[in-house]
């Protein structure tokens, strides 16, 4: 280093020292808490404008029925992916392509309650190919493609009431699971007195096979189980990856006032299911085929109109079909969550009415099964001994422990609803080592990279149920919050508190680089297999077939073709099949027409979408582009002339010459 540089450095250090002293004199010594809550925390969540977050966070929308996407740690809102509910912003559930996705055996349903997103896995790690999410009310599972961030498939679960313990995947996405929360008669559409609950009602655990290439789901089999409430599920990891676990409550078999009647027993169960063995039994033909009625909705090609594949049968396996694939682990008391640590050894229950967090040992469970160490059975399901399988109980976890996730350093983090806090405890000593407040009434929590065999240790997100005073007030009903905590140190530290959409019931976060490089920027025109697409503008046309008129329309900045259409009549059903011929990322066009009993339709570059319109009055109907696409966006418009039903105005269309 040259002498002049040394002098400069010395001057710099001297100056910096003075500044520090000056700052200290002028502002005083900040409290450590203040430093942590303000400066330090802000720095940790700061992502500079134009820079990208380290993680994608996928938050369920709960009663919005959707899935929202966030950048973490900044908590930048990225988008809402419509899944189970219609979305007028994009036209999802309004366009002809997407309407079939919301068809069920009960007809078209514009809404559901989406609870547990789960990212597909390879070898126990999230692989970022797809994300699954359950529909709670009319039991369904959806698959969202993470190249396009669009819902591609929805499968209805037959003979199921309330698909809550869903949509968790096994270690290689062999299966995604579902279950009945509200037991109902398993036999299809059976009309019986509610008082016949114990005799006629049954639970069903669903095993949906996932095609490793396409992601396409198929209802492989259901397991018929006693009429309890099957609440949550998780797949095992590593040594336990052939198993899935479900919690039960209401082993009392109550069907009224469950608040009291289903809270009597000291212990309910965790159902441990060896899915691999169950699948083998099904392959050996041990199951039976029963009548069922359910919808499977998906796209056959890479674009097009979703189809409704209506199913009429389901394969059912009962515990009598083989006595070595399902067991009950007694667990205190009305357990809610069941969570498996990254090694696959510990099965942690959230006994929401229990005073401890029970931790079962997978290896002890296997040993007990090996030794036939059972304490009776229920409907041919062997019951294991609590004392044999339990590895430890976490004392004083707070009131109402619900859900647990894990870091890679041997610590577990449990959400505690009633006392509204997160407790961190050791998987070695089963002792609580740290606790921090949640605002307010925490349900699920998630750790970045969580529920995999390799969780990241950076952040935890708490998903809470009420905001109350946390933000500027927005009326009697406020949006649900989420809180971001730093868990990289010994103590948990609150970094950020932000409102979300709907009810962020559960969430998952994955390292951004596992997804971002694969995200599609356009739909390639050459690959558009939509039956009503045009792949060049000279194909634009209007065709009439009886009362049905199809407009094969193309768009580019800043016009539609055709944009003048005459010869439409009152009583016609008009389909605007709009192909966006742009091939540039994020150049979106939309279409809306006056008086349509429909939402607008947004069309991504290279995509074809269809808006249905049934004009009821004669007149001139303007249509226009709803997406601000260019400097001449305001010029992007057209007219349709609607004539009387008996008129003889010829069907014509044109673009370009006045």
């Amino acid at each position, binding site marked *: 280093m040259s002498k002049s540089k040394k002098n400069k450095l010395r*001057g*710099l250090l*001297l*100056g*910096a020292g*003075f*500044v520090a002293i*000056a700052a200290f004199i002028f502002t005083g010594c900040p409290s450590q808490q203040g430093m942590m809550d303000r400066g330090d925390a802000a720095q940790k969540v700061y992502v500079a404008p134009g820079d990208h977050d380290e993680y994608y966070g996928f938050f369920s929308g709960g009663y919005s029925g959707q899935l929202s996407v966030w950048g973490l740690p900044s908590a930048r809102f990225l988008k809402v992916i419509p899944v189970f509910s219609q979305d007028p912003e994009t036209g999802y559930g309004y366009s002809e392509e997407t309407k079939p996705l919301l068809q069920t055996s009960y007809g078209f349903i514009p809404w559901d309650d989406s609870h547990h997103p789960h990212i597909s896995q390879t070898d126990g790690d999230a692989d970022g190919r797809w994300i699954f999410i359950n529909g709670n009310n009319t039991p369904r599972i959806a698959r969202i493609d993470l190249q396009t961030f669009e819902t591609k498939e929805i499968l209805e679960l037959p003979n199921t009431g309330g698909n809550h313990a869903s949509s968790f995947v096994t270690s290689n996405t062999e299966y995604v699971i579902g279950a009945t929360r509200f037991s109902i008669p398993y036999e299809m559409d059976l009309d019986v007195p509610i008082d016949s609950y114990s005799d006629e009602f049954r639970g069903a655990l669903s095993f949906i096979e996932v095609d490793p290439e396409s992601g396409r789901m198929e209802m492989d089999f259901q397991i018929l189980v006693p009429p309890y409430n099957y609440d949550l599920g998780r797949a095992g990891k590593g040594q336990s990856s052939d198993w899935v676990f479900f919690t039960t409550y209401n082993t009392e078999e109550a069907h009224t006032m469950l608040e009291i009647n289903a809270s009597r027993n000291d212990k309910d169960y965790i159902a441990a299911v060896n899915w691999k063995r169950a699948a083998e039994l099904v392959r050996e033909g041990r199951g039976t085929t029963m009548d069922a009625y359910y919808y499977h909705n998906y796209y056959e090609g890479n674009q097009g109109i979703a189809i409704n594949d209506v199913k009429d049968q389901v394969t059912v396996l009962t515990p009598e079909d083989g006595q070595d694939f399902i067991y009950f682990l007694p667990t205190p008391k009305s357990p809610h969550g069941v969570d498996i640590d990254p090694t696959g050894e510990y099965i942690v229950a959230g006994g929401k009415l229990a005073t401890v967090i029970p931790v079962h040992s997978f290896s002890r469970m296997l040993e007990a099964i090996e030794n036939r160490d059972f304490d009776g059975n229920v409907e041919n399901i062997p019951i294991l001994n609590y004392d044999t399988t339990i590895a430890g109980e976490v004392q004083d976890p707070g009131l109402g422990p619900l859900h647990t996730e894990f870091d890679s350093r041997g610590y577990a983090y449990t959400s505690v609803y009633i006392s509204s806090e997160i407790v961190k405890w050791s998987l070695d000593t089963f002792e609580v080592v740290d606790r921090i407040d949640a605002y307010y009434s925490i349900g699920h929590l998630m750790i970045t990279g969580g529920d995999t065999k390799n969780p990241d240790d950076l952040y935890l997100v708490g998903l809470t149920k009420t905001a109350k005073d946390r933000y500027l007030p927005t009326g009697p009903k406020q949006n649900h919050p989420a809180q971001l905590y730093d868990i990289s140190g010994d103590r948990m530290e609150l970094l950020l508190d932000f409102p979300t959409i709907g009810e962020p019931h559960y969430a998952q976060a994955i390292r951004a680089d596992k997804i971002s490089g694969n995200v599609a920027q*356009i739909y*390639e*025109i*050459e690959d558009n297999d939509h039956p009503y697409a045009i*792949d*060049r*503008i*000279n194909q634009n046309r209007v065709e009439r077939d009886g009362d049905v008129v199809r407009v094969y329309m*193309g768009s*580019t*900045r*800043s*016009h539609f*073709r055709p944009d003048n259409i005459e010869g439409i009549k009152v009583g016609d059903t008009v389909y605007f099949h709009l192909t966006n*011929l*742009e*091939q*540039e990322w994020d*150049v979106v066009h939309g279409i809306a027409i006056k008086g349509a009993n429909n939402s607008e339709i947004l069309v991504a570059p290279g995509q074809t979408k269809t808006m249905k319109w049934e004009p009821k009055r004669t007149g001139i109907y303007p249509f226009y582009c709803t997406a601000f696409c*260019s*400097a*001449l966006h305001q010029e992007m418009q057209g007219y349709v002339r609607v004539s009387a039903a008996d008129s003889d105005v010829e069907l014509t269309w044109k673009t*370009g010459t006045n």
Partner: protein
Amino acid sequence: MKYLITIVAFMLMLLTIQACGNGEQSERSDASDTANGNELTDFELEHGFGPVTERLDIDEEIDMDKVAKGRNIYEMKCEMCHNMGSRMVGPPLGAITETRSPEFIMNFILNPSENVRKHPIGQALLREYMTEMPYQNVKEDEARAIVEYLRHYAETEL
């Protein structure tokens, strides 16, 4: 005394920098440096910016396979904005091969936004047509085929 003044001045400077963020200016050089066209190479001036950086060896004789392929891509990705004989959203292209080099046409197709922003011809076109030519995800061999189609059009239709 002089030393003290230096220190105080330095402190003030540091304080100022601290108060105003990290003081780092965003890089905006690519937009301004060449906007005046002064820094264009002769090749760029003649043949545009893009992946084609040297003259191509193009046979006098038209390659009809390329014409067919080029026509397909042209109809799919260009024709919604261009006519051959008259102005539409963009300029007419029937005689474009007579005024622009094949390399220029290819670079304009493959890299429209940079040519519109930085190249004097692109800038003039934007002033005239008020719409930036969009990127249409055309591959280099496809752009070459479009050139062949346009050459063939100019030879046979004009």
